[in-house]
């Protein structure tokens, strides 16, 4: 039994101009201690699918169908009280910009103790010692001093470590990291990724890493899900997917990595942009950017066909 099992998840945004499906038919499992990466362009539905797990899709969006089973319990229609016990407690989340996610006017200690006290009855002293322990776990030097500081007094890397420490406070089963390194510079980025990887191993936590950076995913996650226009179009073992992408879009993404280009040449790119979710073309949503397009692609949308651990939604999957 998977720790988290998502089936046919659909989130829609009813707008004046019509109902927009932000994600459709998203299904995946997360085993205990497993690390998966969700990759895709902006607007592909990565973040929405993560927020949907916590039932925190921003207004006016809502979860219109599908099921989310966490630890054997259906939580897609759970009430607020149940969800509040899961959020930040069993499933916690790390956001992109640590400057924005820490409250600018509260000290680090207030913010950390707050999280603990919201979930467990304990004294402030007990909360404080747990906070210090977690700050040590994310390798923050002299944590006692940091606790008394405000977010603006700390560097970007330090802030992101603190955000991670906050997410660890209640020993969650799953961490959802929404582009955790995008706002950081490259050297710090590597440190934070290493830290996340080490923490997941130490605490046996599941990780859902959301990113548009294939390089980041390949460093951390065991499995990869590629999203395009609100659907999963390819999934499988990270190494296999990157070594031999089956969907032309995935191949395009891999090909667009700067490492794939010889110095002096122009970087490869996928022509065109992702279709607006308001006007997803018939057939395969990728068909007008695809070099392998046929009439079948224009008229029929390919389903996600799964092999053993590999699945791809394409009429003409690439091989080799």
């Amino acid at each position, binding site marked *: 039994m998977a720790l988290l099992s998502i089936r046919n998840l659909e989130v829609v945004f009813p707008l004046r101009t019509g109902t927009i499906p932000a994600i459709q038919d998203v299904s995946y499992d997360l085993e205990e201690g497993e690390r998966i990466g969700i990759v895709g362009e902006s607007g592909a539905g990565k973040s929405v699918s993560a927020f949907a797990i916590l039932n925190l899709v921003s207004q006016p969006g809502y979860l219109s169908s599908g099921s989310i089973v966490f630890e054997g319990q259906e939580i897609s229609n759970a009430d607020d009280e149940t969800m509040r016990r899961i959020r930040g407690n069993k499933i916690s989340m790390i956001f992109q910009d640590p400057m924005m996610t820490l409250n600018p006017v509260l000290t680090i200690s*207030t913010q950390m103790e707050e999280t603990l006290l*919201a979930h467990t009855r304990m004294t402030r002293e007990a909360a404080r010692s747990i906070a210090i322990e977690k700050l040590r776990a994310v390798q923050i030097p002299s944590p006692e001093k940091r606790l008394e500081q405000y977010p603006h007094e700390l560097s970007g890397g330090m802030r992101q470590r603190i955000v991670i420490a906050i997410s660890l406070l209640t020993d969650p089963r799953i961490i959802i990291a929404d582009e955790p390194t995008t706002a950081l510079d490259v050297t710090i980025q590597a440190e934070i990724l290493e830290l996340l990887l080490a923490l997941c191993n130490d605490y046996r936590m599941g990780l859902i890493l959301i990113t548009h950076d294939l390089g980041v995913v390949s460093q951390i996650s065991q499995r990869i899900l590629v999203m395009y226009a609100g659907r999963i179009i390819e999934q499988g073992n990270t190494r296999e997917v990157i070594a031999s992408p089956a969907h032309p879009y995935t191949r395009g993404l891999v090909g667009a990595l700067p490492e794939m280009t010889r110095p002096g040449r122009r970087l490869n790119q996928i022509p065109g942009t992702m279709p607006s979710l308001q006007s997803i073309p018939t057939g395969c949503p990728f068909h007008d950017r695809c070099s392998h397009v046929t009439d079948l692609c224009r008229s029929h949308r390919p389903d996600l066909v799964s092999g053993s651990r590999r699945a791809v939604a394409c009429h003409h999957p690439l091989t080799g």
Partner: protein
Amino acid sequence: MSSDTLEISGSFRKRLLDSPVYYSFVRNPTAMASAAVLASFILSSALAPWLAPFDPWDQTQFDIMDSEIPPAGSDGADGRFLLGTDAMGRDMLSTILYGTGISIVIGVFATILQAAIGVTVGLAAGYFGGRLDSFLMRIADIQLSFTTLMVAIIILAVFQTTVGPRFHEDFAVMIIILVIGVAEWPQYARTVRACVLGEKKKEYVDAARVIGLGPTRILYRHILPNTFSPLLVISTVQVANAIITEAALSFLGLGMPVTKPSLGALIRNGFEFIFSGAWWITAFPAVVLVVLILSINLLGDWLRDVLNPRLYEK
């Protein structure tokens, strides 16, 4: 809220001395002067029972024979009465000291009441939005469309006639606080709502929700502290406004009774005698009132400039 946020730790002093607010304060003579004036008013009125030569609330302590003695330095002055006496023979200095205290207490507590109502309404309206927002803000609009003075006059006039003067004397302070507090809450509600609309889109609110905090905790512990700087600025204005409103009400005879006069009641009290030459009964409380309001407003101006970094460049 828990007490630890208010706890003054060892580093608090250092933090205060290092803060830009303090930096700007010690370099701004106007702010320092008005803070000094305000502090001396607060201190002297708080210490009035020990500082004042007489107790103006104790009718046995003054004598009608001492009435309308001019202040020191004029003809017929009496050494006992530095600022002269009023028509009842009360020492003006003592009465002003006590009266300033009443005015400040009314100003501060009326503002606290306004803030308590306004902040709650503003937080709820801004955070939950939709119908609740429309409903609460329309109530605020309606409340604002009645001027404070009008509401206060109606309520106080009705109150005075129904409960009788004795009861009114005992509860005047509380009633005035209540009336001014209720009449002016929309100022806070609007400011807080506007701030919340800006703040609730920020990621730290998402983060707080993801942590599993409930709306009350998010609103009061996370969003509210981020709206403190505009609140602090309007609070100074509101305290000054409340003091003026109270003075106006007292001047109209609807505020504090003559037996326990505030600054406004003192001004009214002496106004009848201004043409008979006893100018000091009105003039001294009026000067105190003006200086008090001016110092609060100047302090508020300075605070607004410091807390709004966009004004630094000017």
